[in-house]
């Protein structure tokens, strides 16, 4: 899966916020990962660990007091170096489709779903043939996200959570972007709706519909979530984030399955699930403005030794001085 050219290639991405009084908040530090076409990478971690900041950095939506370093290559384009004009005209909606956290808040409340879809279709694809063609294209876009056409003339507040989510997904898919970025798309939805939403995202990644379907060149999906069950359901690979750093990159089957996570933090997160030990990780995540010099998880970890006072590199696939063992060499290379 990784031999294909990646759609998105993030190298050494860091984000710092400059705060009043000269304080610096290290929201994201030295992130490295790739997402390939037809692949879903789930970026998981506790709230406040820097996941959403990373997403904002890719879209060029960081606030003014943010400083970025490193590269995020989407094809030939470095998203971090691109100017606002490039981001607005070629990236947002066209190269990256954003599936937002709260669809009800993302949609414009005073306009119907049809009006918003038609505006997006006109802006991104400019279909020829006037009103009629635009109307047909918007309805086709709705159908692609399984949004019922007879609900197109509703306003967002008249939609259920599931339908609002599909409307937002339909908007994200209009530009046929090679990368879908889903930032906590399932927060607050009930379990059936979560399963349904992530299954639909997965379907768009697999790209099996339509005349131009090329099974191996589907979209890439970067799924940012704290919902481990949703990640387990659709992810091919997992990037585990803690205190602004990616501490483990693993195959999803191995991470959620028998070998389990190698980083103690990943083990702790899975053990907190109600269908597992239901035991919280002791303590709180560190403040991103005052990170320790060594491993940020050491204070909460049961494997801590003197070695943890030094920052562990993400050597191989896990940034830990005392990772849990892998069962086979093959798993180590995965």
């Amino acid at each position, binding site marked *: 899966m990784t031999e294909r050219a990646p759609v998105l290639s993030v190298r050494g991405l860091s984000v710092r916020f400059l705060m009043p009084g000269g304080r610096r908040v290290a929201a994201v530090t030295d992130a490295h990962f790739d997402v390939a076409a037809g692949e879903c990478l789930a970026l998981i*971690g*506790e*709230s*406040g660990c820097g996941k959403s900041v990373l997403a904002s950095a890719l879209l060029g939506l960081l606030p003014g007091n943010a400083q970025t370093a490193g590269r995020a290559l989407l094809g030939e384009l470095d998203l971090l170096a691109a100017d606002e004009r490039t981001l607005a005209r070629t990236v947002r909606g066209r190269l990256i489709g954003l599936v937002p956290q709260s669809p*009800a808040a993302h949609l414009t409340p005073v306009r119907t779903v049809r009006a918003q879809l038609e505006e997006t279709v006109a802006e991104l694809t400019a279909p020829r043939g006037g009103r009629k063609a635009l109307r047909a294209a918007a309805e086709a876009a709705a159908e692609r996200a399984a949004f019922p056409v007879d609900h197109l003339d509703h306003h967002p507040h008249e*939609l*259920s*959570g*599931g339908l*609002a989510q599909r409307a937002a997904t339909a908007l994200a898919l209009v530009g046929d972007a090679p990368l879908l970025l889903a930032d906590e798309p399932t*927060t*607050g*939805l*009930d*379990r*059936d*709706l979560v399963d349904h939403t992530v299954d639909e995202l997965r379907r768009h990644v697999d790209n099996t519909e339509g005349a131009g379907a090329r099974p191996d060149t589907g979209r890439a999906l970067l799924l940012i979530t*704290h919902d*481990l069950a949703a990640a387990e359901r659709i992810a091919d690979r997992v990037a585990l984030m803690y205190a602004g750093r990616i501490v483990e990159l693993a195959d999803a089957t191995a991470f959620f399955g028998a070998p389990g996570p190698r980083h103690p933090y990943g083990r*702790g*997160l*899975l053990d*907190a*699930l*109600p*269908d597992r030990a*239901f*035991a*919280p*990780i002791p*303590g*709180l995540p560190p*403040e991103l403005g005052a990170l320790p010099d060594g491993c940020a998880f050491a204070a909460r970890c049961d494997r801590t030794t003197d070695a943890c006072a030094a920052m562990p590199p993400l050597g191989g696939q896990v940034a830990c001085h005392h990772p849990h063992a892998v069962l086979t060499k093959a798993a180590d290379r995965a």
Partner: protein
Amino acid sequence: MLELHTVTAGYDRNAPVFRGVSLSVAPGEAVGLLGPSGCGKSTLARVAALLHRPDAGTLHLDGTPVRRWRHRAPRDQRTAFGVVFQQPRLSADPRLALADLIAEPLRATGRRDEAAGRIAELSATVGLTADLLARRPHEVSDGQLQRACLARALVLRPRWLVCDEMTAMLDASTTAALVRVVEEYRAATGAGLLAVGHDRVLLDRWCGRTVDWATLTASGTDPSTRNEQSPTG
């Protein structure tokens, strides 16, 4: 005993969210109320916590019928409940530091002098550091803010806890931590719990008894009146 008998409630008298629902929670019991988004379970939780006046039906609190809701309820009934909502951001006054947020119920009931002691005690229980207590809601994460909201719900030592999707916005570890705080409080005080949620795995693990919303409403709710926005704050 907290007893709801044939309660009908909603936001429009002509189209109630649910009709004729009965549910009771014994002292010390943990009842999970399970239902899909928009079924009316949050409205029921608000009725049970005296925060929403039902259109019909009765509510008995330890044998006493409840006649008044919200600010009209007598103080000893109002303060018998601790409530935690789904969205901490919408249920926290953005102007208050977390310490003041936790102490607010003490101030409102004229027990300001207990504040320092209770804050110290509860911040240790829910895992908030002194640094966090001095911050305002926009300076902390959702998980940290929900910890403060849980401390606020416990500050008056309620006999009943109503947790309406308390953990829906939170990650697995924070969820497990907050559930543990609630359970330790209940073990120490014998408080009853009504936990509303849509996660069967969580409620089955957390509560002694899980009630399916569908079994409470024999007549069923009208799907056209379903409201997907969870009431908060």
